[in-house]
């Protein structure tokens, strides 16, 4: 089972649709709303996103710690998750 981590914003509709898509496809994932973080936690999360996606855009989806997909690209997500 792929390890899926989602960096998202609580106000972003594409991020919400991404969560809905992952749920519908029964893909387990962890996520964080970076806009809801503050202080050290927020800085750490931003640095992580920057590492995977220098554009710092959302949603940023990281699969197995190395494959990054930016935006709700359904086919790419399914393929990377082996679905």
């Amino acid at each position: 089972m792929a390890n899926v981590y989602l960096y998202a914003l609580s106000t972003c509709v594409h991020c919400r649709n991404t969560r809905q898509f992952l749920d519908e496809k029964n893909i387990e994932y962890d996520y964080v709303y970076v806009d809801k973080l503050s202080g050290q936690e927020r800085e750490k999360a931003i640095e992580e996103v920057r590492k995977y996606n220098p554009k710092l855009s959302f949603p940023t989806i990281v699969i197995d710690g190395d494959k990054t997909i930016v935006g709700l690209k359904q086919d790419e997500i399914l393929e990377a998750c082996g679905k």
Partner: protein
Amino acid sequence: MTPEKLYETLKKLQEPKGYLFNKNRTMVMELMEGLLENKDRYGYMACPCRLASGSQQDDRDIICPCVYREEDVREFGSCYCGLYVSREWNEDKIPHECVPERRPLEKITF
């Protein structure tokens, strides 16, 4: 202000300028909520799909409608967050693609 009130206010302002809202009403209302939430927490309507810095000065390019809307709607038929679209986009005459982030890195401050 309620999302519906914001919707009506913006509609009167933007449609005469040729900017249409996404036909997906649910999505538009969620974006209205996002704008109002950002207004509450930051004091300005930062784009709901971008991480705001909290500084209105630094974020003036992503205050909705963002400065990137024009080019994004022209190139993709939709702005970055999907709120404003072209007639062709709404009539499904062009593909609905993910709009990549056009904002230059040097403008992003946290």
